[in-house]
């Protein structure tokens, strides 16, 4: 039994890409959230999110070398718990304006939701104590504050503020 609630967060592609763009000497909020993964909160990610991030950063506009992106994401993957979305929940969870099938972050949240406590006791405990977050800058499709599969949508600035104020 954990001594205190450990929040679990899934960082959307929109956060990871913004983190990549951050200045190192003045990290933006997205990068700060990535740097805190595994250290100040439990990060949960999936191959779907990682592959989508790589696909975005491989586009010419970013000019990123794939080997650099891979090395960078490797650190984040090692800092995170991985889930492997095999099942899509189907239908619109009611907190998403677009087609739910389009968003790896929702597949990841659902995979984490159905994960048994045997495999990821921290996720199960966070489920029970309401500490599950989907962090995304996509407010076009996601509705901040709404819940899907037990995860609450939250923007990076709000999750950052939540972490800074954590006293337990």
């Amino acid at each position: 039994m954990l001594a205190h609630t450990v929040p679990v967060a899934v960082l959307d592609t929109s956060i990871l890409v913004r983190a990549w763009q951050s200045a190192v000497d003045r990290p933006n909020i997205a990068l700060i959230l990535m740097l805190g993964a595994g250290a100040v909160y439990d990060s949960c990610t999936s191959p779907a999110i990682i592959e989508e991030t790589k696909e975005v950063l491989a586009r010419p506009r970013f000019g990123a070398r794939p080997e650099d992106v891979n090395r960078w994401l490797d650190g984040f993957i090692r800092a995170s718990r991985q889930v492997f979305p095999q099942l899509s929940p189907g239908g619109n969870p009611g907190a998403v304006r677009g087609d739910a099938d389009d968003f790896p972050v929702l597949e990841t949240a659902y995979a984490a939701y159905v994960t048994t406590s045997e495999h990821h006791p921290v996720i199960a405990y966070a489920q029970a104590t309401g500490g599950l977050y989907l962090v995304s800058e996509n407010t076009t499709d996601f509705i901040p504050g709404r819940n899907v599969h037990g995860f609450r949508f939250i923007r990076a600035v709000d999750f950052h503020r939540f972490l800074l104020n954590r006293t337990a």
Partner: protein
Amino acid sequence: MSIDVEVSVVTGVQLRALREVAVRLDEQGLHAESGTILGVVDAVARKRAGVSTGEAAYVLGVTQQTVRNWVRAGVLAGWCDATGHFLVAPDALALARTMRGVLAETHRTEVSEGEIDLEIAAVRAERRRRSVAAR
């Protein structure tokens, strides 16, 4: 009145030698003396291994006060040493250092937030097209 002062940091070789002395004392039945020495050795070893709040704050992109708050609350792995200084466990920062290190070595093109969202949308649109074409 006795005053505790912090002496200069000992070397790893000296710490190992002290630990061997503690083992020999324990073998001779001087358990209390052995325990005392081991306690000192462990405390010094931990201080050498801990990361300062200043460095941890830099690595994590937050203020030193936030680091102290987190360590005090048990949010971030660390401890408070005998002099009242907060130290952070090196393991807690290792992967953050790795991510920072890669970004520091990498040239990145400036892209606006709006462009980021357009590029993500384009990737998803392309994936939908591939998915439809595959059926």
